């Protein structure tokens, strides 16, 4: 007695000529579910986060009341930063301190060439690191100071203004904390621009 069948490619053959060839396929979905769950959770977290931030600033306004109010408890200085095509000129001003004392903390910073760490591309830009260091020295000497008057030339683009404000806002300490420098920025104009109006 022999069993029927003898198909080389199938399991069937024992019960007649027609046989159903069925393969059971086991898909291991566990790692796929893991990956998709992780991606989903990270996307949910990132989706709610803010992409846009803001930089608070003001402009100087002429007001009727010109009587100065001097807060005498701590010495404060106002940093004036002029931006032209080739340099940053930093000067200090205070109603209570002598100009000779403030002159030593002023600075003139030129442009430097930096290398982009990711692309290796060389870029020429203002010396933002030098600006931050100079402002840090002023802040350490006069901690109550927080106002910077920014006076860019008319042809300086907005992106450069933002980069300067970033460099002036805070300083990253070795401990990881940030030291606030000059986060109150007043955007002014050069006297040449003002005189064009007249």
């Amino acid at each position, binding site marked *: 007695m022999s069993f029927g069948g003898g198909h080389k490619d199938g399991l069937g053959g024992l019960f007649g000529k027609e046989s159903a060839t069925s393969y059971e396929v086991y898909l291991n979905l566990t790692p796929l579910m893991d990956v*998709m769950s992780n991606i989903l959770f990270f996307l949910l977290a990132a989706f709610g986060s803010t*992409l846009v931030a803001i930089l608070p600033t003001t*402009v100087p*306004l002429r007001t009727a009341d010109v009587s100065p109010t001097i807060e005498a408890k701590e010495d404060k200085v106002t940093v004036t930063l002029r931006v032209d095509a080739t340099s940053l000129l930093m000067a200090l001003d205070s109603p209570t301190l002598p100009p000779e004392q403030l002159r030593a903390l002023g600075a003139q910073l030129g442009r430097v060439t930096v290398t982009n760490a990711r692309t290796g591309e060389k870029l020429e830009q203002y010396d933002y690191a030098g600006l931050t260091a100079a402002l840090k020295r002023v802040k350490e000497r006069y901690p109550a100071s927080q106002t910077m008057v920014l006076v860019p030339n008319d042809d300086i683009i*907005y992106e450069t203004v933002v980069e300067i404000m970033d460099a002036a806002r*805070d300083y990253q300490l070795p401990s990881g904390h940030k030291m606030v420098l000059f986060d109150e920025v007043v955007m002014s*104009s050069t006297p040449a*621009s003002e005189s064009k109006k007249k």
Partner: protein
Amino acid sequence: MAGGGDSGSEYEVNINLTAMLDVLTNLLFFLMFGLAAQQSAIELEGGVRLPVSSAELPPKHNTTVVVGERELRIEKEVIATVTGGRLPGNSTSRIESLYRRLVTLRGKRIAASGPKDAEEDTLLVLCDKTTPYALVRRVLVTSAEAGYPKFRMGVLMQ
């Protein structure tokens, strides 16, 4: 001789993961596209490309002035056209159309809710990163004269 075997019965549980995978895949794709669209929406309107900054302050709802490559807008209303980083007319004077519109908006707001909230006199300014400072300053000075002395400059977070 009876062979030894496991005692008790085993239940095979078949979980149909197909539907769950469908749902997760759809969620994944919609979130991916939504995340890309969120940044694009900020950039594409009026041709504004915001500069990147290390600032971390979140934006609040304020009247928005947009200074794009092609137009100057308050919210979605076009106030003036921008050509080569300049507005037509005198390059140093107040922007009259912007001034009038802001005065009108401020008047409506005060009429509706009263002059009690100083926070409302803050403008959110979105400027294209290539905008010359001269134009930025004109917008800020005009806005200050219209009764909005404080500004929040919108940037993209690093």
